[in-house]
């Protein structure tokens, strides 16, 4: 058993997109190697996690999309954690957005909340992707 020390438990946060991107790159690297029985559980959980993330908003994101989103949302004074939640969860209604932004009504007016939702809705959505896929396959 190897003893390890935790140096910093919050050195960085990863967006869902970055996690999916990393797991996809792992998969490409592993394809070239023959998988042994030992790594089967790791491969299963990697596959299942990718399956989960592929149905989330991050599946339609890219570094350019994220950069654009962060530039657009910068005019609102939001914490890093709140911006990350908006990016990962893509809330579409006031009742959803109040779950990720603390004290929403105290900090922002109704018009500002509407504006925030507009910026978030500019993030591509899986629903749009599914409709596109269905149209293409016809």
């Amino acid at each position: 058993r190897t003893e390890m020390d935790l140096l910093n438990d919050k050195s960085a946060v990863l967006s869902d997109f970055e996690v999916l991107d990393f797991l996809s790159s792992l998969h490409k690297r592993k394809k070239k190697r023959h998988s042994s029985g030992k790594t089967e559980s790791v491969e299963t959980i990697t596959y299942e996690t990718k399956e989960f993330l592929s149905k989330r908003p991050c599946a339609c994101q890219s570094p350019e999309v994220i950069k654009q989103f962060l530039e657009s949302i910068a005019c609102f004074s939001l914490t890093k954690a709140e911006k990350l939640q908006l990016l990962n969860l893509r809330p579409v209604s006031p009742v959803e957005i109040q779950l990720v932004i603390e004290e929403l009504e105290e900090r922002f007016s109704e018009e500002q909340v509407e504006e925030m939702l507009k910026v978030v809705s500019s993030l591509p959505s899986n629903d749009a992707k599914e409709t596109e896929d269905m149209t293409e396959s016809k």
Partner: protein
Amino acid sequence: MHVRTRLCCVCSVSLGFFDDVFIPHQSLQHPKRFDHEEQLWVWQYEAEDGRHDLFMDVEEEVRLRVIHEEFVDTFPSSVKPHMGQDTVSSSGVSLDEVRAPYTIIGSISESGLGLVTWW
């Protein structure tokens, strides 16, 4: 994530790749009851036109807030609790049967949480 199983003290939720997510009954939407016939939790939603029973059907997608996470050392040499003692986590969920190395405790007792179809 979706509703997986439901016992009369806790609701279990799955992410697909991870199954050890639990909502203790006190963190469900209030008022609530457990329907023994259907074996499902029910949110007794109070509307202007009276009370409506909203069932937490299995496989339905839910939105929850993570309130606690628990790491348990399942390494064989770690000290095990004495037999007969009720092992209850600090959040009130019984861990007698569940000894997963990592467990997430969630809550749906806020507006916007619970079944996605409710909102």
